[in-house]
């Protein structure tokens, strides 16, 4: 229990401590390594020896010492005692316990740095989880199901790339900030989805990613309370997460929304998500996360799948398609259209996607088509389409689910 509490505290303090170090020493890669070492030291000591009175100052002190040690070793290796080193020696290293409260902007600046456009998406995820989330390389590797060495290399490479890009610890210029924030939100959304879509069993540790993404998005929402898309993303995560227990059966089989036991949905998350999106929509500039959250809220308020307000869902998808046109949105709109105007209308809309190479061979197109064909009573075509979808997916639980739906139609 003490370990859990310490872990939570360390994750909260991680970006603050890194912020303090970066303000003093600038060098992102070296500072990040030093903070990671300090976090590891604390994770070993604090559960047994107790949390120090000033945990942040403790971490800053230990991390600064590690930084000095690393630099000293580096300089010794180069056999060079230059002015830099002398300057470092005279720098008072141990911060006073009254170290000023870290600026809230530090965390935001750090997020922008970790989601720097020069990085590949997978590197942005890894670096964000480590530098802002305070997770260890081993934890991140376990969550992404890769060897620790692979993840360690990815993080080192990401830090080297940031250094090479000359990106410093400062807020992006005003005219870039909006676009850069979208990247940060996307990274948080992907982290959430990696965790949310994980089924149980060997991938259980991936679940932590959903919790972590919600925690980080809450943090960003606290820092930017007036940004509608940040609020929208947080609401979307809460509303989606509320269904987590209901989305899989006892054998890890996926259960579609329409068949889920809604008694298993988490009311607390639904309430928080719904209140948040209801408060956001009237005042903020409309954006895709807010609209997706609004759709999730409509589903959440239906006590049974039959009571779903499909005209409302359809109207929201139409809006979403205008704000952020994307074939995946069209796919979802086809389902809503079918529920309002009958399966034929949905199928007609799907036919327009066959020529779109972004989705033409995606299993979602075949599975949505199969579902609508089933609703239209075209059993044979529906079965073929489910089988096609089962071949196209790269997810084992989805494949199992789609094969079952195909088999269910054969039995009739």
């Amino acid at each position, binding site marked *: 229990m003490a370990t859990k509490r310490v872990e939570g505290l360390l994750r909260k303090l991680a970006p603050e401590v890194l912020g303090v170090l970066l303000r003093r020493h600038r060098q992102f890669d070296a500072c990040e390594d030093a903070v990671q070492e300090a976090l590891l030291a604390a994770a070993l000591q604090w559960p047994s020896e107790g949390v120090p009175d000033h945990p942040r100052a403790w971490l800053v002190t230990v991390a600064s010492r590690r930084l000095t040690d690393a630099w000293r070793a580096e300089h010794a290796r180069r056999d060079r005692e230059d002015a830099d080193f002398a300057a470092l020696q005279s720098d008072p290293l141990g911060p006073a316990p009254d170290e000023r409260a870290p600026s809230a902007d530090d965390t935001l600046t750090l997020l922008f740095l970790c989601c720097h456009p020069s990085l*590949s*998406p*997978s*590197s942005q995820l*890894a670096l964000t989880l480590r530098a802002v989330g305070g997770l260890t390389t081993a934890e991140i590797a376990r969550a*992404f*199901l*890769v*060897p620790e060495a*692979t*993840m*360690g*290399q*990815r*993080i*080192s*490479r*990401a830090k080297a790339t940031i250094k090479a890009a000359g990106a410093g610890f400062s807020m992006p210029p005003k005219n870039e900030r909006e676009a850069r924030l979208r990247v940060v939100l996307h990274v948080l959304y992907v982290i959430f989805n*990696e965790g949310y*879509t*994980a*089924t149980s*069993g*060997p*991938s259980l540790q*991936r679940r932590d990613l959903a919790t972590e993404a919600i925690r980080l998005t809450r943090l960003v929402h606290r820092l930017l309370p007036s940004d509608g898309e940040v609020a929208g993303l947080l609401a979307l995560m809460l509303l989606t997460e509320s269904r987590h227990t209901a*989305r*899989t059966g006892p054998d890890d089989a*996926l*259960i*579609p*929304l329409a068949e*889920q036991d809604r008694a298993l949905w988490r009311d607390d998350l639904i309430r928080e998500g719904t209140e948040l999106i209801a408060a956001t929509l009237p005042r903020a500039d409309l954006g895709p996360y807010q609209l997706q959250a609004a759709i999730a809220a409509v589903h959440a308020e239906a006590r049974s799948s039959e009571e779903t307000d499909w005209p409302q869902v359809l109207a929201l998808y139409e809006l979403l398609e205008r704000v952020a046109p994307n074939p995946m949105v069209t796919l979802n709109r086809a389902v809503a259209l079918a529920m309002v105007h009958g399966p034929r209308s949905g199928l007609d809309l799907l036919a327009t996607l066959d020529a779109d190479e972004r989705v033409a061979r995606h299993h979602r197109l075949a599975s949505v088509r199969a579902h609508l064909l089933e609703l239209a009573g075209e059993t044979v075509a529906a079965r073929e389409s489910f089988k096609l979808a089962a071949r196209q*997916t*790269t*997810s*084992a*639980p*989805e*494949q199992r*689910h789609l094969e079952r739906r195909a088999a269910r139609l054969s039995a009739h």
Partner: protein
Amino acid sequence: MKYMLLIYENPGTREAFFADEKLRAEMSAYVDGLRASGELVDGEGLADPSTARVVRFEHGVPAVTDGPFMEAKEYFGGFMIVDCDGIERATEIARDHPPLPGGGAMEIRPLMSGGGSED
């Protein structure tokens, strides 16, 4: 996303590879590069097909045969598993592989994942 890159060689591939010092250096630089980028998850080379054994199921009964069991022009010679941003990047990784002497091919196959979406 994880992909397996299946490497298909032919009978002359290894011989030519070991005779070519420059190619061997390119190969080790290639692997080092993938390791350094944090994309290489695993990889192995397979021994010659003549050392293989095959268990074949005929009507549910396993029958064992020693190699060489086929006179294929191309056979499975090794694999790499990479974890990268998508099939485009995986394809780029395969294209960057030093040219396999005497032809050969690489097949890029997505690995099945454990997560899934319920809608």
